[in-house]
């Protein structure tokens, strides 16, 4: 791995860590709010909050408007999961940009292919 790649990776990895930490904080807040409202800390074995949307982006689309109506446990957990799922996606996008900027067409192609596969899985499946 070249020095530049290492530098890029350090930068990306910190973004990822921030994303994961933010996601964990949102999840914890959501769980705390859930506990306050239900007084039940136990992990439900028949979960009630069921994600049922056709794809990730519509999920984001339906989750964001509910933010303005004030924080609820479901909203916080939803945002936490969205944040979490965006971290690896962000990493792929950053790598495509990096290899594109370096005119490394071989790896621009490879990272773009990965981006396309994952994007298709997020949109079409």
């Amino acid at each position: 791995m070249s020095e530049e790649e290492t530098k890029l990776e350090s930068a990306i990895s910190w973004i990822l860590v921030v994303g994961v930490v933010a996601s964990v904080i949102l999840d914890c807040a959501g769980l705390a709010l859930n506990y306050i409202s239900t007084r039940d800390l136990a992990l439900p074995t028949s979960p009630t909050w069921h994600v049922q949307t056709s794809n990730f982006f519509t999920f984001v689309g339906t989750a964001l408007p509910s933010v303005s109506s004030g924080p609820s446990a479901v909203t916080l957990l939803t945002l936490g999961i969205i944040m979490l799922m965006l971290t690896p996606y962000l990493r792929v996008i950053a790598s495509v940009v990096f290899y594109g900027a370096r005119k490394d067409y071989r790896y621009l192609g490879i990272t773009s292919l990965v981006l396309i596969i994952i994007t298709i899985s997020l949109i079409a499946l």
Partner: protein
Amino acid sequence: MGLGGAAITTPVLVYFGVPIKIAIAASMVAIIATSSGSASSYVKSRLSNVRAAFFMEIFTALGAIVGAFITSLIAPAFLYFFFAAFLLTSFIALSSRFRRKQRPNQEQDGAAKWLRLEGSYYDKPRGEEVSYKLHRPLLAAPGMFVAGLAAGMLGIGAGVFKVSIHELILGMPPKVSTATSNFIIGMTALAGASVYFSSGLLYLDLAAPLAVGTTVGAIIGARILPRLRNETVRMLFFVVLVVIIIEMLYKGVVAL
């Protein structure tokens, strides 16, 4: 450790009465946290090979999508046996490499040269820079597809399987292979998780606490790994795997 933890959490969730498909979907999301959360410490010690990771990610992502589709369609009973079979395969692969001491590979074939698959890292316990070259990437590709398939089907990172391919086919040093596997897992898990989204198998209040727990575990693990010797890493891996296999076999028998 290159072992995301989902191989442990899924059997535990099933034990507590969570349907296996829902446990798999939740684990798939949670291991994204494992992979992304441990990224910084691996990269800082320059352990993961980014080029090799992206080349292999093409195949694991495709495998994960196909695997997650299979899981959302088949009868749950099959999944216990796939789980046990997968872990057993991993166990065999691991024990065969356990006794052998690996020297860093220095040969490259045409495909590996074209992909510039090589690197170096600083080995702390030995106190020296170790450089290595990889080979046979085209042979590793179908193997990585199968690893992705297993990951998508079972909601796990399939780290043990990936690590075996990295070392036995590509010729990666153990620490690099563990770190690279961790790098790949997040992207593969995302591809699989998005299938579970549309299948309606994802439950937020199960995925969220699971993500919190695995993140904490992963961060601790990634801090410890660079300080350990390769032999110690392998030994720990081995012990964890034995425990999981015994656990899964027990679950399989109970489910019959």
